[in-house]
C-alpha cells in the first residue's frame, strides 16, 4: 500500500529519481534570491564608481597637494580655491563637540542601565533614549536654530553668531547619545556575571566593579560604540546645514559659522551645478573624502565589535 500511489507501469517503484520541473523551479528561485543578495555588492561598487569617476575628473583640474593641504575653500565664488582643510575642520569640530556630549552621557547612561537599573526602570528608560535616535535630523536642526542658539546668545552674548558650530555640535551630540548608550550597554551586558561577583566578593563597591571590572571587560564594544557614534556625527547633514551655516572656516572659536563637508555637498546640490563643471566635480571629491573617512571609522568599529563578540560568545 505504501508506494502504490507512485507506481507507474514499467517504472521501478523504489527508484530514487527526482522531478526535473521541480528541480528547475528550485534553481530559478535560488538564482533570484542570489541576485537580491548581490544587489548590495552592486550598490557598493556603484557608489565607489560614481564617486571615483568625477573625483578623477576633479583632480585633473585641481592638484591633489593643494586639495589636501590648502587652507582656503571657495568652490563656488571666484577666486576659486580648493583646499579641503576648512571643510574637514568644520566636520571635526562638529563631530568633536558631539563626541564630548554623547560619549560621557551615553556611557554614563549605559552604566546606569546595565549595572543599576532594575528591569522595570530599564524597560521604560531604554526605549525613551531610543526615541532620540528616531527623531529626524531636520527636527534637530530646527531645535538648534530656535532654541539652542538663542540660549547660547543669552549666556555668551554677541560672540555667538546666528550660525555657529557649537549649536550644531550640541544637537548632533544629543542625536547620537543612544548609539553610545545602546551599544555600550549591550557590551556591558555581555560581561559574565561571574566576573562581577568575583569583584564584589573581594569587597568592591558598585563603583569599583563598574569602572574596574565591567568597563575594561567590555572595552572593545564600548570603544566601537564611540567610533560608530562619531562616524554618524561626521555624516550628519541637515542639523549642521541649518545651525552651522555655509562659511568654510579654520577658526578655533566654536561660536563662529562653519561649513562641514556634508553642508558643502548640499550647497552645491541646491545650486544645480551642470554636469562636468568644477563645482559638480568638487561635490564628488568632497563626497569621496567623506565616504573614505566614514568607511574607515566603520571598519575599525566592526573589527572591535567582532573582537568583543569572539571573547564572550
Amino acid at each position: 500500500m505504501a508506494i502504490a500511489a507512485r507506481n507507474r507501469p514499467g517504472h521501478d517503484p523504489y527508484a530514487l529519481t527526482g522531478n526535473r520541473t521541480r528541480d528547475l523551479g528550485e534553481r530559478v528561485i535560488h538564482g533570484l534570491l542570489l541576485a537580491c543578495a548581490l544587489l548590495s555588492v552592486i550598490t557598493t561598487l556603484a557608489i565607489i564608481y560614481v564617486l571615483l569617476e568625477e573625483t578623477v575628473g576633479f583632480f585633473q583640474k585641481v592638484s591633489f597637494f593643494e586639495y589636501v593641504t590648502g587652507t582656503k575653500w571657495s568652490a563656488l565664488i571666484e577666486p576659486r580655491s580648493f583646499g579641503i582643510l576648512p571643510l574637514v575642520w568644520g566636520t571635526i569640530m562638529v563631530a568633536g563637540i558631539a563626541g564630548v556630549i554623547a560619549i560621557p552621557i551615553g556611557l554614563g547612561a549605559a552604566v546606569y542601565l546595565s549595572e543599576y537599573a532594575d528591569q522595570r526602570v530599564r524597560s521604560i528608560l531604554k526605549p525613551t533614549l531610543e526615541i532620540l535616535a528616531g527623531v529626524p535630523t531636520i527636527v534637530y536642526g530646527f531645535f538648534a536654530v530656535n532654541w539652542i542658539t538663542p540660549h547660547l546668545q543669552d549666556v555668551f552674548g554677541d560672540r555667538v553668531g546666528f550660525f555657529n558650530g557649537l549649536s550644531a555640535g550640541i544637537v548632533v551630540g544629543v542625536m547620537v547619545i543612544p548609539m553610545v548608550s545602546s551599544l555600550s550597554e549591550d557590551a556591558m551586558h555581555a560581561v559574565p556575571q561571574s566576573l562581577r561577583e568575583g569583584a564584589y566578593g573581594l569587597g568592591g563597591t558598585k563603583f569599583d566593579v563598574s569602572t574596574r571590572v565591567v568597563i575594561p571587560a567590555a572595552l572593545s564594544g564600548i570603544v566601537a560604540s564611540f567610533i560608530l557614534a562619531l562616524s554618524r556625527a561626521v555624516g550628519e547633514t541637515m542639523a549642521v546645514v541649518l545651525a552651522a551655516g555655509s562659511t568654510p572656516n579654520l577658526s578655533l572659536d566654536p561660536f563662529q559659522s562653519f561649513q562641514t563637508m556634508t553642508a558643502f555637498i548640499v550647497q552645491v546640490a541646491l545650486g544645480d551645478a551642470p554636469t562636468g563643471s568644477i563645482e559638480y566635480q568638487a561635490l564628488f571629491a568632497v563626497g569621496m573624502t567623506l565616504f573614505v573617512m566614514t568607511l574607515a571609522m566603520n571598519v575599525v568599529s566592526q573589527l572591535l565589535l567582532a573582537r568583543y563578540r569572539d571573547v564572550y560568545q
Partner: protein
Amino acid sequence: MSAQPVILTSSNRQQTRAWISRSFTGGTFLCTLAGVVALSVLLYQVLDEGLARLSKDFLTTLPSRFADRAGFEPAIWGSVWVMGITALLTIPIGMGAAIYLELYAAKNWLTRFIQINIANLAGVPSIIYGILGLALFVRAMELQRSVLAGALTMALLVLPIVIIASQEALRAVPSSLRDGALALGATRWQTIRGQILPVAMPGMLTGVILALSRAIGETAPLIMIGAFQYVPFSPGGVADLPDCASWSDGCPLKSRFTVMPVQIYSWAARPQEAFQQTAAAGIIVLLAVLLSLNSVAIVLRNRYQRKVKW
C-alpha cells in the same frame, strides 16, 4: 591575653569609597535623565512653536511665498508616493536577500563578504546615497527629478537595514521547524514558503516598518535628487498610474515632488519668524506620522512575540 574586639564599622577610607559609589550612582542616573530631558525640551519647543499654526488648512493647501498661507499638502502626498514605491521595491528585494543569506548561502568567503558589505552600507552617510542617486538615477538614467528617482535612491538607502532586520527574524525561527518540514520530503523553497516565512514574517515586517520610518525623515538624499524646488503640486493620484505604462507626463512616478522633511527644511531655512512657526507645524505632522508608524511596528512585534511560544 587581651583580645582586640573586632569592629565592623567603616574606616574613613571606606566611607569615602562608599560616598564615591553613591555619587557615581547619582551621576550615571543623571546621564540617563539628561537624554530624556533633552528629548522633552525638544518636543516642548516644537509644540510651542507650531501647535498654533497647525490646522486642517495647513494640511490641505499648497506652499506659498506667504508664511501664513503656506500649506503642507504636496509634501504629504510626495512622501506617500516616494515611500510607497520605496516599500514596494525594498520588501521583496530585502527579504529575498535575507532569505538567501540565511537559508541558501553556504558559509564561505563570498557569503561573509556580502554580509560585511551590507553592514558597511548600513553605516554609509545618507547623503552619499543622495550623491549616488543624483549621478545614477537623475543624470545617467535621465529620470530627472522624479518620484521614481527619489524612490530608487531611498530604496538603496533602506535596503541594508531591511536585510539585517529580516535576517534576524529568520534566525529566530527554530531549526526544528525546518527539520520537520524537510524530513517530510519538502524542497528547500517549499519549507521556506510553507513554514519558515509565515513564522518569520511579523518580525520581518516590523523591520521594514522601522526602516521606512527612518526613511520618511530623511532630507539630505532627496535634496540631492532635487526635491527642494518650489513644488506647488502633488504627484497625482493612483488613477493616473496607467500613464506610467507609456512614461507620459501624467505618470505620478515621473512627477517632480517634495517630501515632508524637505519642505520643513525650506521653511526653516528662511529667516522670518512666521516661517519658523510653519516649519514647526510641519514637524509636528512629521512626528505624528512617525509615532503612528512606530506604534504599528511595536504592536506587531508584541503580537508576534506572544504567538511564538515554543
